[in-house]
C-alpha cells in the first residue's frame, strides 16, 4: 500500500473543522513572515549593487547577445529588412529573465520559433543581463513570487481564484496551448509550447511580455490577479491525479483514435487469430483413436 496515498483535496467545503481555520491562520502568518524575511534583505542589497549588476550585464550582453540585438540593444535588421534580432529597449527585465532563464536565448539561429535549450547562464548572470536590459528603457520587471502565489488567502478565496483562473485559461490560453497546456500547432511550422510543469514565474513573464509570436496579455487588460489565478489553476491541475488513467499526452481525440486502433483493435485481432489458430497437433495416435479414425 505504499503507492497509495490519500490526497487531502478539497479543504474548503466539507472537511472544515472548528480548529482548521485557526491552524490555517497560524500557518498563513508564519508563511507571510518567512516570505517577508526572505525577500527584504535582498531588496536592500539590490539598491547598493544595481550599478555593478548593470555593468556586469552589459559585459555579458556584448559577448552573448549584441551580435543579433545590436551593441546597445537597438536591434538588427538583415539585408532584406527582416528582423534579425528585435530591439530590446523597453522589453524589460521580465522578458530577459524568461528568454534566457528558460534557455530560449541565446538562439542558435534567428527564426520565429525559439526552441528551448539548456540554460546558458547562471542565475546571477541572468539577473545581470536582466538588469542591463531593464536599464535601456522602462519595461516590465521580473514578477516577485508574491504576485503569483495564493499565500495569505483563505481557502475559499483560493478555491475561487483557481476556478476563475480555469475560466481565464480556457478563454485566453487553450486556443494555442491546448486544454491540458500540452501545446499546439501554429502557422508555418511554429508551435505553442507545452506549459505544464513550467515555473510559475516564467508563465507570468510569458503572459506579461509575449515571447516570440505570443501576444502579450498586458496588465491593463489581464490584471495581475487574473494572471495569478491562471497560474493557480495550472498548479491545481498539476496536483490532480490522472483520474481516468494514462492521459496520452493530452492531445485529445487523435491520440485516443490511435489507441483504439493500435491497442484495442490490435489486441482483439490478436485474440481472434489465437482463437481460430489450430492447437498443437500430434502424430501419435492412441489405439482407440487410431481405430476410430479408420472406422
Amino acid at each position: 500500500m505504499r503507492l497509495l496515498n490519500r490526497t487531502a483535496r478539497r479543504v474548503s467545503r466539507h472537511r472544515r473543522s472548528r480548529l482548521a481555520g485557526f491552524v490555517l491562520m497560524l500557518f498563513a502568518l508564519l508563511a507571510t513572515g518567512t516570505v517577508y524575511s526572505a525577500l527584504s534583505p535582498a531588496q536592500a542589497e539590490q539598491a547598493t549593487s544595481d550599478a555593478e549588476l548593470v555593468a556586469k550585464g552589459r559585459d555579458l550582453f556584448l559577448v552573448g547577445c549584441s551580435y543579433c540585438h545590436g551593441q546597445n540593444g537597438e536591434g538588427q535588421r538583415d539585408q532584406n529588412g527582416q528582423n534579425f534580432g528585435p530591439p530590446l529597449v523597453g522589453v524589460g527585465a521580465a522578458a530577459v529573465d524568461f528568454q534566457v532563464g528558460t534557455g530560449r536565448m541565446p538562439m542558435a539561429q534567428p527564426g520565429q520559433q525559439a526552441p528551448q535549450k539548456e540554460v546558458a547562464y547562471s542565475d546571477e548572470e541572468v539577473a545581470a543581463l536582466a538588469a542591463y536590459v531593464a536599464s535601456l528603457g522602462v519595461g516590465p520587471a521580473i514578477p516577485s513570487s508574491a504576485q503569483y502565489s495564493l499565500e495569505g488567502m483563505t481557502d475559499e478565496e483560493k478555491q475561487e481564484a483557481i476556478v476563475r483562473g480555469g475560466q481565464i485559461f480556457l478563454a485566453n490560453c487553450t486556443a494555442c496551448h491546448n486544454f491540458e497546456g500540452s501545446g499546439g500547432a501554429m502557422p508555418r511550422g511554429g508551435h505553442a509550447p507545452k506549459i505544464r510543469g513550467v515555473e510559475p514565474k516564467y508563465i507570468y513573464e510569458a503572459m506579461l511580455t509575449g515571447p516570440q509570436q505570443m501576444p502579450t496579455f498586458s496588465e491593463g487588460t489581464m490584471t495581475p490577479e487574473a494572471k495569478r489565478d491562471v497560474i493557480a489553476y495550472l498548479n491545481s491541475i498539476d496536483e490532480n491525479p490522472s483520474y481516468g488513467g494514462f492521459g496520452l499526452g493530452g492531445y485529445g481525440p487523435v491520440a485516443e483514435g490511435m489507441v483504439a486502433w493500435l491497442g484495442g483493435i490490435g489486441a482483439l485481432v490478436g485474440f481472434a487469430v489465437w482463437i481460430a489458430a489450430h492447437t498443437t497437433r500430434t502424430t501419435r495416435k492412441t489405439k482407440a483413436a487410431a481405430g476410430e479414425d479408420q472406422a
Partner: protein
Amino acid sequence: MSDDTTLEKRHDAASAVVEEPIANPGLPAHVYRPTDIDPAAEKRAERQIAGLFVFAMLCVVGFAVSYFVFDIADNHDTVGGLGASTLALGLTLGGALLAIGIGMIQWARKLMNDHEIVEMRHPGRSSDEDREKVVADVLQGAEDSGIARRPLIRNTLLGALGLVGITPVLALRDLGPLPGDSLYHTPWTEGMRVAVDVLGTPIRPADMEIGSLVNGQPMSLYEENEEGEPLYEGVDLQVAKSKGSVILVKMEPGDIIHGKGRDNWTVDGVLCYSKICTHVGCPISLYERTTHHVLCPCHQSTFDLADSAKVVFGPAARPLPQLPLALDDEGYLIAQSDFIEAVGPSFWERDTLPEDGS
C-alpha cells in the same frame, strides 16, 4: 504476343469446359491433439481452464473490495498518480471478463470434440413450385380484393396515404422558429463598450501594448437590468456569445492596411474582429503577434488581422467581420455600430438580407 490474341485465347480457353488441374482430394484425415490422446495433458488443460475461472472469481471479489475500499469524490484515492477507484474497478472487471473468455475458448480449443463436420448448402432461391404458388396466391389475393376492378378505391387510397405522409413533416414545423433576420444581428450596438472576456472590465487603448491580444465580449453580457437580473442568462447568454465574441489586437499603426472605408475603425492601433470563424464557426484566437496572423484551431484557416483579416491560408473563404471601434467620453473602447455583415459561417441567403435587415 499482342494483347488481343492473348485475350481471345484466354476467352476461348475459359469458355470451353476445362478439366480441373487437380481434383478435390476431400477432407484430410483428422489429426489429434495431445489432449485427445494423453490423459495427463487432458488433466493439465482441465486444471488450467478451471484455474482461469477461479481467477475470474477472485477478480470479482477484488472488484467488490475495491468498490468499497477506494474513495472517490472529495477524498479521491490515487495509485501511482492515477485515480485508484477507476483503475482498480477496471482492472478487476477486465481481469474477470478476460479470464472467463480465455477459459471458455481454451475449453473449446483443447477439450471439446474438434472433429470438423460438413453441412450441405442449399441455393438461395426458392423452388419453382414455391414461386408459382406464391405468385398464384398473390394474384388470387389481388383478384379477391378487386383492386384492379375498382380504380376509384385504389386511387383514393393511394392519395389518402400520400397525404397522411405529410402530417409528420408538417408536425415537425414547430421544431424551431424561422430564422428571420436574427443571424444578421449581434448584441453589439452603437456605443457599447468592449469588455474583457471572463473579467468583464472595460478597456482603454493604453491598457494594451503593441502585440497585445484581448478576448472581448460586448459589455451588455456583464450588465444587469433594473431588477438586478443579468441581461443575458442561460441560453440567451450562449447565443449572445456565439455571435458577439471578438478579439482585439494592438499593432503598430504603420503596420495596418486599412480596408476600404475602414480608416476610422481603429483606435490607436487597436483593431477588433469577430472571433467566430467564417468557415464553420469555431472561435478563433491563435494570434501571432509578429505576423499579425490569427489561426483557427479547427480547420486551420489563417487570417491577416493587419489587412482587414483577409484569408491567407486554409478553407475559409471570407475575412473575419471587423467591428468599427471608437472611444467614449471616459476613454474606453466602444463599438461604432453592430457588425455590418453577418458573423460566422456562410449560409445561402447571407448576401441578401442586410439591406432590409439592418
